[in-house]
Each structure stands twice: as C-alpha cells, then as structure tokens.
C-alpha cells in the first residue's frame, strides 16, 4: 500500500430489522469535511432495481450519522433517518409505473447500503464503493407463523404471533387489485395480533366459478378466526384499504355475525349501495365510470366516481349505527378515492347520530391513496390491473413523496397504538404511551 489508507467504516444498526423499525446508518473514519454519497440498492422480487441516495459532508470527527446529519442532495434531503428506504425509486432506465410490493414475506427484503467518494448522482454501477453493508428488513418477527386458510372456501393466510396466546384477531383487506396481499398482516402479527389476510376479489372460488364472493365469505373468515384456539374471539378488529374500507364499514355496521372491537379504514369511502353484495357494489362504481378523468400524463383519476357524496341514505353505510371505535386514515391528495370528502361526511353522520366519540380521523395533506406500512417507497402512480377491467391502466394514486412518507410513518404508529388500546385492554391508558 503506497498511499495513506483511510478505511471508512460503514455500519447499519440493526442490520436485521422489522420493516417498521428505524435503523442508524453511520460512517466513521472519513476525512473530516469530505463529501460522500450514501446509497441504498434493492432488487425486488420481479427483478427491478431500486435506489436511493443522499449527499453528505463528514464532520470534524470524520463521522456521518444519517439520523442526525442533513443530506444536501440526492433522492431525499435534510435530516432523514429512514430516507434511504422511503425515497427508493426505480433506477434510471426502468420502465414506468412500478410499485414495490413483497409477495414472499417469509424472506427478508435485502438492501445493500454503500458509501461512495464525492457527491454522485448517476452511474453508480460503474463506481467502486468505499464500503458496503447488507441489511435485512423483515415483515415477520422470529416465531411468527404463517398458516394458509382454505376452510369454508376461503383464500386467506393467517399470521400468528409467537407465544401461547390467545391473541386478539384482525381481518386484513386490501383493495381493487385483488390477490392475497400478506405483508401488512405479517407485520401486524409481529406486533401481537393474529392477523388474517383475505383475498376476496380473486379468491380461488371466484377464479374457478367466475362468481364473486358474497357477504357470507367475510362472515366465514370472521368465524374461522374467532374459533381458532389461539385467538381471543371477543377481540377482533378489521382493517381495510381502498375497496377494503367499503367491506369493513359494511360488515362493521350491518353484519349480524361480525362483531368488531375496532375498525381501521384507510383511503376509502362509506358510499355504496347499502346491503349490496361485492358484485353489486362494483357495478355501482362502474355505472359512474364516465366520471373518470385523466391527468396530463394520461393517468387514470377515479376519485370522482363516488362524488358528490350522496345524500340518499340508501347509498351510504349508516355509520351512525356503528358501535365500535373507528380510525379513518385519509390522504388529502388521494386521486383514486374521495377519502377526504367521505371522511367529512362520516364525521357529520356520526355527530348527528351521537356516536362521534368512536371516531378518530387522521388526515394528511399531500399524502396519496396508498398509505402503506412505513419506509416503503411512495408510488404517485403505477400500473394496475383491476378485476373490473381487462387491460392494465396507469392509475394516479396521488401524494408528494416526502409528505406521503411522513404520513405512512405517522399513520402506522397511531394505527398500532389504536389497535393495541382497543384489542389489548386500554385498562392502563398510559401503558402504550411510550410507543
């Protein structure tokens, strides 16, 4: 070695974390005042590569601490402890309309974090980093078990926390894209909830018979969960996003079988033909199809399909009859559903009925439709294939990345506290105040 060697030490703590855990990225032993780029790289399951990077200047001790020091450029700026994850974007040259979603949640998301000399913005593949580490991000905590559920014709997956139980239960529903989406249920099980992710639009029974599931399908899911020996049958909640909200509100208010201890509705609406089946609700949306708008980039905007919020009570779930706490999560820049308008209407209806003490609304300016678990990248738009239309469309979800990412982090934290308080006790209101 002829030159004076400065070995930069890069560390990420923890190197194996849950998807919603923060980490500390540290560079040590750099030349004080030197310019460095910290970059994260991830290759997702469908083969696309995503990157995020920040530009830093080492301090007088030769240290960069991402949780304390500002990034002055890159895919994020300012002091952003988790910027290397939430600001992920497809690498240059990738096709448009991508969305990062993990299908196999039994393996971790693998991210390589490296440090480069200077403030780099492109051509990372041709540069040799000074140092690099591998980081694992898990949806499942150790000991969480995944159990496929096919009982009663269900297409579902149950995630049980480790331990003897019994655990409060959770029914987890996603939106119009269908499929069995498991990651949120897996993560919630890692927080102590027996969570069942349910496919209700592309369920095996629908794919085989061509018929949409009826309301009994959800009641079956509830029963299966309730009767599980490790589930506390009297403490079951439901969480729905987008179209999943429509189902959640309907079941919470009208089902004779489903008795929820709490409901979480993200980016959705109460507008639907009351007592309609899944199929009838979808047809109701389709009827208003001509209200579809397009952005200047030709992205589909579907928020107007349910606007204006009807005054006809037969077209809205009667939330005045709700008997369990409800948490509504709203992105004010939601371009896919009129979640903000719906939330306002829900609030009014509940105030008139006298049960508004059950309602909590979390409303985030500049957040879009896809309010997901934290530190996953924001997709302002992406290609979507719904059960109603054959071809893929480019759907505008909305949201500005920074605010949307903050909304994801804040909403998730509050949602977990809400679920813990309503499902685990609430006898000690200060119990979870440290969260």
């Amino acid at each position, binding site marked *: 070695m002829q030159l*004076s060697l400065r070995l930069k030490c890069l560390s990420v703590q923890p190197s194996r974390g849950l998807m919603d855990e923060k980490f500390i990225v540290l560079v040590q032993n750099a030349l004080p005042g030197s310019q460095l780029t910290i970059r994260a790289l991830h290759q997702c399951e469908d083969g696309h590569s995503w990157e995020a990077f920040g530009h830093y200047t080492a301090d007088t001790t030769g240290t960069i601490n991402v949780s304390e020091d500002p990034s002055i450029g890159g895919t994020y700026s300012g002091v952003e402890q988790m910027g290397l994850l939430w600001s992920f974007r497809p690498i240059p040259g990738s096709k448009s309309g991508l969305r990062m979603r993990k299908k196999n949640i039994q393996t971790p998301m693998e991210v390589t974090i490296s440090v480069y000399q200077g403030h780099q913005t492109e051509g990372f593949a041709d540069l040799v980093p000074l140092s690099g580490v*591998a980081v694992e991000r898990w949806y499942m905590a150790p000991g969480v078990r995944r159990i496929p559920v096919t009982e009663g014709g269900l297409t579902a997956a149950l995630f049980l926390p480790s331990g003897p139980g019994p655990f409060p239960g959770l029914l987890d529903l996603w939106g119009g894209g269908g499929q069995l989406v498991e990651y949120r249920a897996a993560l919630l099980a890692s927080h102590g909830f027996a969570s069942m992710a349910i496919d209700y639009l592309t369920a095996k029974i629908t794919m085989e018979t061509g018929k949409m599931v009826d309301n009994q399908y959800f009641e079956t899911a509830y029963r299966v969960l309730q009767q599980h020996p490790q589930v506390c049958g009297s403490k079951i909640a439901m969480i729905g996003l987008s179209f999943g909200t429509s189902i959640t509100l309907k079941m919470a208010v009208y089902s004779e079988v489903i008795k929820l201890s709490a409901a979480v509705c993200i980016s959705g609406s109460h507008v639907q033909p009351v007592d309609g089946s899944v199929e009838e609700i979808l047809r109701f949306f389709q009827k208003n199809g001509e209200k579809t708008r397009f952005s200047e980039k030709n992205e589909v905007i579907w928020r107007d399909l349910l606007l204006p919020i009807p005054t006809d009570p037969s077209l809205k779930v009667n939330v005045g009859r709700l008997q369990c706490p409800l948490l509504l999560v709203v992105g004010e820049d939601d371009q896919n559903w009129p979640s903000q308008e719906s939330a306002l209407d829900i609030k009014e209806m509940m105030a008139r009925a006298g049960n508004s003490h059950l309602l909590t609304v979390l409303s985030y300016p500049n957040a879009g439709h896809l309010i997901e678990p934290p530190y996953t990248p924001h997709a302002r738009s992406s290609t979507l294939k719904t059960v109603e239309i054959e071809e893929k469309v480019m759907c505008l979800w909305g949201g500005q990345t920074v605010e949307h990412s903050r909304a994801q982090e804040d909403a998730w934290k509050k949602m977990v506290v809400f679920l813990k308080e309503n499902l685990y006790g609430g006898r000690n209101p200060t119990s979870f105040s440290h969260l």
Partner: protein
Amino acid sequence: MWSVTRPLLQECTLACYRLLSAMTQAVPPILSITPSRALVDEKFQVLVENLPPGCPVTLHSLHHSEDKDDWEAYGHYVSDHRGVVSVTEDLSFGGTYTGKEPMGLLWSMRPVPGSREGLRLRKINVCTPMLVNISVHSGHEDFRDRTPLASALAERWYMAPGVKRIDINKQGVQGTLFIPPGPGPFPTLLDMWGGGVGLLEYRSALLASRGYVSFSLDYLRSEHLSADVEFKYFETAFNIIRNHPQVIPDRVGILGISLGSTVAFNLTAYSTIIKVNVPRCIVCISSNHYHPPGTTLKAGFKILSKHFHKAHFDENNYMSWRSFGLDLIADPSNNVEVGRINCPMLLVNGCDDQNWPTVETAEEVARLLREGGKEHLLSRLAYPGAGHLIEPPFSPHFRATKFIILNSKKKVILLWGGHTKAHSDAQEDSWRKILSFLQLHLYHSPSVKAKL
C-alpha cells in the same frame, strides 16, 4: 434494592394470578424483544406490558442447544403502576441473576435442572441464529407450575447479513475464512482457539460481522511431525491470509485464546518471514506462553499431562492446572521469549483463572517488554472474578466443563474459574475493548508506507 417479603409476595401472586386468569380469557400481556434479530454482541430490550399493576412475574429464557441440551435463565420482577416490566430498567429480585441486568436472561443461562454435568454452550453452525425463547410467567418461586402468559422468540446471530463463509484447504492449511460484505479489501485477523475443542468458528464470524476478514485456523487436528513443520504450518497460514485478494497485507493481526495465545506469541516472536508491521498487532486472551522449545503443541500437551498428578482438585472434584502451571512457567526456558515481540499487544485475563496462571504470564510479559524498553507496546486488561474462558459478550459462563484429554480417552471436568456476574461483566467489557484496540491498530492507524 428493596426486598419483597414472602407472605406479601404470595398474597400478591394469588391476587394477580386470579386477575390474570380472568384476563387471559380476555387478552394476555404482551412480551416484546427489541431488536428481535441481533448479533450476539448486541443488547436487546425485553418489555412486558398489559400486566396488572404490582404483579409478581418471572421472566424466563430458554434455549435448546445444538447438542440437544436445554439452557435457561430467569429473573423475578414486579410490574409497575402501568402494568409494565422492563428488564432494561427494573430490578430482578432473584433467579439466576439479580439487580438491573438488561442482558441477564442471556449471560446467566445455565443447563436446566437434571442436565448432564460439565456442559458448555458453543454454536457450531454459525450460519443459523441461536434461538432464545423468552416467556413471562405469573409468580416467583413457583413460576414453573404455570404455563407462560406470553412469550417471544429472539434470534441471536454470529453472522451479519452479507458475511461470506469459505472453507479453506490450501497448501495443507485448513480452516474457515469469513469475509465481511462490501468491496474490500479489509483488515484481517488470524483467529485461534484453545486446545481440545476442535475448530470453532463463531468468534471469527462475529469479527467478520464487525468488519474484519477473519480466519479461524484449524491447528490441532493434524499431527505435525516436528516443531519446525508445525511452525511452518502457522507461517503458511499467515501468508495465505496475507495474500488473499480481500485482505490488506499490512493490516493483519492475530487473536488467540489460551493455547491459541501461545501460538500467537510463538509466531510473532520467532517468525523470520513475517516482517515489519506484520502482524500489525496481537490480542491474547487468557495468555499462555508455555511452549518448550523444539516441541509441537501436542507434544507440549503430553509433557503437561505428565504433571496431572500434581493437579489440584477442588471440593467438586474439578481439576485445576493452575498450580502446576505456575511451576512450569517458573523456568523461563520452557516459555516463548515474548521479549522479542515488536508489535502492539493486548493481554486479556481473568484474575480467577483456575486453568492456567494467565495473570502471572501477563506480569512476566510486561516485565520482559519493560526490560527491552518496549512497555509502550503493551495494554493489559485483568478482571477480578473472571475465569479462563473469556468469550464474546452475553454468552453463559462456565466455571467448569467436561474436557477430553488429548491423545487419551480420559474425560475430566476442568475448572476454568470465574464467578458468573463478574465473568459476564468481563466478557462484555473486554469485547468492547478488544474491538476498540483492533479498530485503532487495524483500521485507523495510517499505513507505514504513506507518502508524506
């Protein structure tokens, strides 16, 4: 630390148990471990929430080892007014550890009642984590009679993500190489264990997780014909590592424990092919410089075994080599001439070492270096109450374990020494200081050949 009187405790336990029974028809307490996946030298926080306030509970850890033994630790706690028990913040009133001990559930582990005698816990497969189940039970003394209220699983890893494990079998040298993630090249360590245990990889895996290429050398398996041949084996091993593309050749150190430290002293003192600044530094844990000239390590062992009749046996019939060891090292012609060593050295010893006079050895090393005007090269750590087996932090302490005497079928129980709490504190403190010493000499110091 305030004590909890027995009758009061029993009353509390009964009341809480009734309350908890009623609750568990509803929902149980929540036990969380943060982080749930960590390296073995990282701390975790164990928290129980949603208990009734003032409730006596026991936190219990359980590990099923690769040797199919069960190891456990437990602490007795009382929940606060919020119904919370925090192992990080609260006091344990009894169990396998007492007081404020965030990691007590790991370092105070011992074989469960009814286990075989003289067990030792070591991970052989370092590619998988050590799984520890932590549960919370109601009550204190009788906690075992009840099923747990809640439990969670912790993964403790020796290998960080991205660390590569490579089997080495080159030029007769055998061992396992661990390479950190990243472009490299890296500062490097030649890692040597003690006698009688075979190849142990876990410390090397952990060192690689901390940024060093680490080579765990298998040096006792083969039968070396002569001391020269054996010495060449070590020099060859050192060179193979030094010439590896992922290794920075002038940033190679040696780390050895017990017999491994003998090898470290020997190689560093006598090698002619190893030049200036190489090794860059050495770390000797439970230092041993007994190495009669012209003998192989195994032959040296044979000589040692001739002194076993002089061994001291304690009240449990555990065998200590310390006293005859002292006699042996009293003759300087039996020992490595450590005064010849020219590189920075860190000696780590337990003052209650019953296996070998390692503290006296360290004193002797200090004296010899002082005579040569090289005392500035030496750093020493000596821990009162610690024994011979100073391992990475939070691993359980073994005061005595089964040992098979090399070349014979004889099994004894060797006394290593140490008292659990003091020994565990020593493991935690020494590891941090070893890493800091290695960082200073292998990462931060400028290269000698730097351009001015």
